[in-house]
């Protein structure tokens, strides 16, 4: 281990000499208080280090120790339900041992070393195994069976393995690999800058169902896909991310609070344990890993938090799970890069961001995907990424948004206007898009209803027509509109208010299944068709809009998931009422 000496301190950047042999991206310990740092540039004898902790009190002359290891995460049982900072320090343990504020040089193992887990083998003595093969299982939480996989570079015969209660450090198996006998325990260390390997990438197959109507129906994301949520402050990025963390049908959620508010993490910690997974009825915390490096925590660790989170996510994907990562906000991550780049006096690109901004963002989203995992069972896993973007002043032409849009396949554009009218989620249906419609339509037409694609198309058309008509009204007033156009306005309003709008804070409205989403929209479209016909028979629009069942349509969101048959009742009532007024008007 070489020892160097500090020659410069500038905020989170420290420059040291005499670290010969230390590699770029190696971790070092800085100063007498042994702060965590990472070598990010080497120029001759000068090693630039980004320090993951507050550097006040550190000065030239103090030692720097190299560890000869890159920044690693610990992977193993105990991740689920935990909350870590950007360099995977366990925040709950830090608080228990060191108090309410984060002190310098605080160090605790990421995973609990004492806890006993019940390990059951899935292979037998004398089996031949190779990387990715599942050696055995530990029940990590009520929802998650943690699969212990053969680590990279290990291939050979199992010499010893048995069912037992064990800590993560004890040996669970002996494997003869390359004539050596290796003791395998339940901790794997992995460099966060290095994507984990997969056997093969495959195209997406199924939607990531979010329970959010505007998303699932109009701008869906798939398992293994990518999406971004840009919007000015207060437009609802965090609520969208929280809703997805709560309700999307992934097996595992990794939520990264990257440079955002402390209270938002407190909120997640308060709510998730109380909420029940709609599929299993278990607490949502049983499938969640939290990374919290809030805005006021050291900025270099904020930069690392994204890599830490995605590496943990890849690890669970490798077990064959469907994993979703929420990163709120990727802009804060980009800003952390900009801050370090500025201190390194690199040549700045647009708005001071480093020139490698685009490639960093692209490599992050590239870590998503639907894959065949390593391991001889050819299991499938997938990793979806949903990134919030915080454009300054809501201006989407800025570098982070632009770099993100070049790589992600779904864009949920949040609109300030909608937010100030309290239309939530404030996803602008005119500008947002999803490039996954084919996959989702195919899935939904077999699993939900063959009419899925058609009603989506028709509803979207109505909304587009509405916005054209609105322009028109601005100039000439509502009087000039035909009855048909007025009907379009009315029906579009129903789509907006009764379907697109969804209150995250109302327990009855916060989640909607695909089936119910279909029924809700279908009801509105059926009403539209029925009304057109009535207009043809010269029924007045006012009369149609006054039918009693219109109230039922607009409160359809509150129909419980186990009483979806009620949609038929409403439909029958609606048809009956419109037929009634049509006959009346024909009769007179």
């Amino acid at each position: 281990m070489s020892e160097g000496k500090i020659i410069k301190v500038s905020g989170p950047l420290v420059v040291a000499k005499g670290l010969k042999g230390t590699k770029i991206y190696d971790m070092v310990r800085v100063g007498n208080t042994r702060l965590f740092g990472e070598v990010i540039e080497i120029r001759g004898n000068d090693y630039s280090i980004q320090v993951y902790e507050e550097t006040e009190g550190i000065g030239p002359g103090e030692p720097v120790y190299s560890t000869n290891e890159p920044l690693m995460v610990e992977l193993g049982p105990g991740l689920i339900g935990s909350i870590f900072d950007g360099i995977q320090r366990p925040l709950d343990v830090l608080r228990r041992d060191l108090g309410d504020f984060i002190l310098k040089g605080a160090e605790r193992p990421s995973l609990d070393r004492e806890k006993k887990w019940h390990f059951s083998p899935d292979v037998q003595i004398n089996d031949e195994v190779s990387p990715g093969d599942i050696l055995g299982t530990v029940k990590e939480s009520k929802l998650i069976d943690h699969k212990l996989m053969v680590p990279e570079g290990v291939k050979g015969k199992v010499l010893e393995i048995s069912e037992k209660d064990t800590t993560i450090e004890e040996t669970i198996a002996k494997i003869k690999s390359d004539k050596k006998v290796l003791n395998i325990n339940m901790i794997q260390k992995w460099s966060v800058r290095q994507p984990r390997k997969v056997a093969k990438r495959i195209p997406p197959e199924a939607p990531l169902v979010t329970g959010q109507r505007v998303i699932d129906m109009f701008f869906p994301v798939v398992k293994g896909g990518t999406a971004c949520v840009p919007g000015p402050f207060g437009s609802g990025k965090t609520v969208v991310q929280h809703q997805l963390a709560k309700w999307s049908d992934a097996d595992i959620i990794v939520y990264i609070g990257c440079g955002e508010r402390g209270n938002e993490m407190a909120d997640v910690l308060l709510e998730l344990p109380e909420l029940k997974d709609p599929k299993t009825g278990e607490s949502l915390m049983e499938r969640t890993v939290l990374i919290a490096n809030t805005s006021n925590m050291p900025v270099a660790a904020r930069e690392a938090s994204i890599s830490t989170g995605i590496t943990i996510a890849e690890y669970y994907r490798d077990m064959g799970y469907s994993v979703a990562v929420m990163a709120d906000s990727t802009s804060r991550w980009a800003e952390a890069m900009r801050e370090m780049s500025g201190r390194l006096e690199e040549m700045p690109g647009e708005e001071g961001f480093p020139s490698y901004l685009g490639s960093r963002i692209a490599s992050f989203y590239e870590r998503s995907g639907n894959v065949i995992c390593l391991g001889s069972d050819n299991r499938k896993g997938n990793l979806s990424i949903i990134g919030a973007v915080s454009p300054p002043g809501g201006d989407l032409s800025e570098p982070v948004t632009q770099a993100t849009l070049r790589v992600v396949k779904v864009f949920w554009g949040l609109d300030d206007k909608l937010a100030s009218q309290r239309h939530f989620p404030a996803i602008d249906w005119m500008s947002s898009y999803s490039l996954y419609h084919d996959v989702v339509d195919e899935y939904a037409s077999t699993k939900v209803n063959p009419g899925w694609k058609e009603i989506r198309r028709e509803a979207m058309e109505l909304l587009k027509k509405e916005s054209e008509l609105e322009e028109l009204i601005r100039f000439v007033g509502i009087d000039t509109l035909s009855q048909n156009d007025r009907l379009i306005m009315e029906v579009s309003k129903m789509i907006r208010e009764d379907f697109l709008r969804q209150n995250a804070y109302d327990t009855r409205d916060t989640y909607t299944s695909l089936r119910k989403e279909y029924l809700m929209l279908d009801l509105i479209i059926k009403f539209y068709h029925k009304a057109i016909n009535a207009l043809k028979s010269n029924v007045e629009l006012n009369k149609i809009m006054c039918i009693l069942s219109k109230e039922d349509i607009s409160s359809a969101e509150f129909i419980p998931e186990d009483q979806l048959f009620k949609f038929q009742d409403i439909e029958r009532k609606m048809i009956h009422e419109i037929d009634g007024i049509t006959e009346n008007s024909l009769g007179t």
Partner: protein
Amino acid sequence: MYKEYLTVKDIIGPLMFVEDVEGITYGELVQVKLNNGDVRYGTVIEVEERLALVQVFEGTRGISPENAKVKFLRKGLEIGVSPDIVGRIFNGSGHLIDGRPNIIPKKRLNIHGHPMNPYARDYPNEFIQTGISAIDGLNPLVRGQKLPIFSGSGLPHSRLAAQIARQSKVLKTGEKFAVVFAAMGITFDEANFFISDFKRTGAIERAVMFINLANDPSIERITVPRMALTVAEYLAYELDMHVLVIMVDMTNYCEALKEISAARKEVPSRRGYPGYLYTDLSTIYERAGRIKGKKGSITQIPILTMPEDDKTHPIPDLTGYITEGQIMLDRGLNGAEIYPPIDVLPSLSRLKDKGIGKDKTRDDHADLLNQLYSAYARGKNAKEISVVIGESALSPVDILFVNFSERFEKEYICQGEYEDRTIEDTLNIGWKLLGIIPRAELKRIRPEYIEKYYRETPI
């Protein structure tokens, strides 16, 4: 004991390079003595083996390489605290200016504090009644929240902040309160307004004030909010007090930061502000909050004036990205003599949801709030259309909404500077005005509340 250096080399803006130094650490406190006996303080913002870059708090005016003796004090910037600090007034460099005897500190605290462990945070959920309808009814404030006022030059943000400080109460008694006030670059008149208002109401007895005026060194504005928040943390977490921190004007703070950044020749991001403005502001704003197991709390009301009334300017923009909502003042309403001129549509309280409702304010509060918002938005929208193409273009229902929105501004938002409305009053005014609108249009409210509170009032 401390080595004295006579090796000041360059002086650039508020910054000073000292050569041939040894054993210096980042963030260290620096004392600068001038020949004429003047003493100033500063802090090390970058250090190399033989060179320290010092930011001088009271400014570098009058310093020359020949007349300055520099000492490095081996500690960060600290402030002495004790329970006696309550009721006292400091200047921007942390000296008492109220003419009363010095206090004997119980302890000295580093003004940068430490980041709060997010796991230690307790979610703010206790409703604070400010007596102001536009806040209590529509953008409720809770204990431990950071809720800024986005204002413009000449708008009555000071009066509003003073009214909040005067009237704020929690619907519970027997607790200890304090107000910590941090003034950055404001005028003497404005500072005096607060001091006399606090004196008149007796609030001064439980206030701690830090005053940096427009003609004081701008560089002090970097430390003023940090001193104030260090005191606030002491009062909240060690003395169990509920502390309201008012900081005015954050725009001046950001300007000072920009000045230092320019002197260091850093690459700027938007409009000349440093790329780390967001991070820097968060180390101030994130010091609001509550801690599990502690009695006290810190609620922040930062005030900033938006340059050119533009909320996309980096100062309000980055503030809004950190704080838990914003109260937006509007020049148009102010012109129409509506006080407080709060434009409720772009205003927001992000923490309202867990602070209101049954057992906190009233069962109907959340629904009513949503309905008032949407009715007001619709009314204003319709009014805009009618301005372009005439009222005849509006449907009869839209005309009712226009009517609603006008009365809403006059009767709900507008109130006296000394009018302290209870939350019941505020909610009831809301229902009274909704009476203008036909029942069938009230889609945001559950039928049971409509049943209970709605009375149609034909106009």
